[in-house]
């Protein structure tokens, strides 16, 4: 098999591994992770020291330890305390927790970047803190947080390759299989890298669209 033939033959299996594994895994984990991150960010901002302490601790552990280990603990460690979770759910849980830790800091910074006057304007028209948050602060924080969150998402897409360690078949796993068979690991890995890059380019252009839409209310 020539190199060129190998590249051609691998393309569809790799792409399919991406579309059926990498992308759904990343999307599901990102969506859940964002929800979690919002909660953690609010806890972190809280004046209650215990609540904000818990959030700090969580963020610190998530960001301070390798994702690989987090995956291992959930998939191989939980059974030892009687909780056995299937590969896909394990992966989604681990990646969501991970996104939750990273995105929480982004969201916190974005919330804090909205001028204090916006909170006060909300209060002064009679809004509760909750309504002010959802109606006024978060929509404005969204604009600021799109670029860093899309970085988090792009990292996530690449990090999903670790899911192959806990039996989830996604693109990198497919690449490993092809590489093992053909022994042309470099070629196949580069091909996979290019497909990751493709995904990231698509994501970046999505990011641009969202940014444009959120930017409609600011001067250019």
């Amino acid at each position: 098999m020539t190199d060129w033939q190998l590249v051609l033959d691998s393309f569809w299996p790799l792409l399919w591994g991406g579309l059926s594994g990498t992308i759904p895994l990343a999307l599901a984990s990102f969506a859940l992770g964002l929800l979690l991150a919002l909660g953690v960010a609010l806890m972190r901002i809280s004046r209650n020291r215990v609540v904000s302490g818990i959030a700090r601790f969580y963020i610190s552990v998530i960001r301070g330890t390798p994702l690989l280990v987090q995956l291992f603990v959930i998939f191989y460690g939980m059974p030892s305390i009687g909780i056995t979770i299937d590969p896909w759910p394990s992966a989604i849980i681990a990646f969501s927790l991970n996104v939750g830790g990273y995105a929480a800091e982004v969201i916190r910074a974005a919330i804090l970047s909205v001028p204090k006057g916006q909170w006060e304007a909300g209060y002064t028209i009679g809004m509760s803190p909750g309504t002010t948050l959802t109606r006024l602060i978060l929509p404005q924080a969204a604009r600021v947080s799109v670029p860093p969150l899309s970085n988090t998402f792009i990292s996530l897409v690449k990090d999903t390759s670790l899911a192959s360690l806990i039996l989830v078949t996604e693109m990198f796993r497919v690449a490993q299989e092809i590489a093992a068979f053909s022994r042309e690991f470099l070629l196949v890995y580069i091909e996979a890298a290019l497909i990751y890059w493709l995904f990231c380019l698509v994501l970046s252009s999505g990011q641009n669209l969202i940014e444009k839409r959120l930017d409609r209310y600011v001067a250019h």
Partner: protein
Amino acid sequence: MSPTDHERSANDGAANGGAANGSDAAGADPLAPGQTPDDSVLLEARGIRKSFGDNEVLRSIDLEVRRGEVVVLIGPSGSGKTTVLRSLNGLETPDGGTVSIAGGPSLDFSTPISKAERFALRDRSAMVFQQHNLFPHMTVLQNVIEGPVRVQKVPKARAEAEASALLDRVGLAEKHDAYPFELSGGQQQRVGIVRALALKPQLLLFDEPTSALDPELVGEVLQVIKELADEGWTMVVVTHELGFARQAADEVLFMDGGVVVERGAPGQLFTAPREERTRRFLQRILRPLD
């Protein structure tokens, strides 16, 4: 739009302001509070004290505003003017003193106050900020109806009709669907005023509403505030525009170092201040080069 109705419903503990009666007001002049001064006391604050850490910002402030009256607060930077307004609007919690608005129950700040009490305070007044603090992600109309619709639960169609009338009245007929960034500073500040009016508060609080504006835009905003004053709205205005104070104020308070140094009718205070401190301040503002 009648502060009297508003008061009634506010006293019932509801937060829907004068909305129940608002429909018939839409036909009338939207700027008019629908009420003539009746000389009853609308706001009474006694002995307001506030410290930030070691910094004693308000020492013991007394303030009495009658219905339809315009009170202007002047004083050097850091004298506590903004803190007074924020205390009246419930954005700041004083360490002591009492406030009652519209004959409502008197709030005593020397004991902890409840959330409901703070909200009641806030419901009776509306504040216009120096930096307008419009919601940048909403159009002009959305900015104005946000309070009535979300907080006071006014039906959206009616809130929009009322908001439109107010906006037209202050010369923003063309700008309903513009975003704040598309407006000049003076237009933004006028939207800020309309946003406050739309809540139909009994008391309007203005914190240096023109000091962030280009000099040629100051006039259009002061004009709007003066019309509100002429039409009987009750208001407390912090400003450095002494010309405005002279024409519109019923009473002027000069604050310095967290106390009211001197108070009086503008004619008296500006031309014959009793206190040396007042004189020096006025001089610095009116004749900076002498």
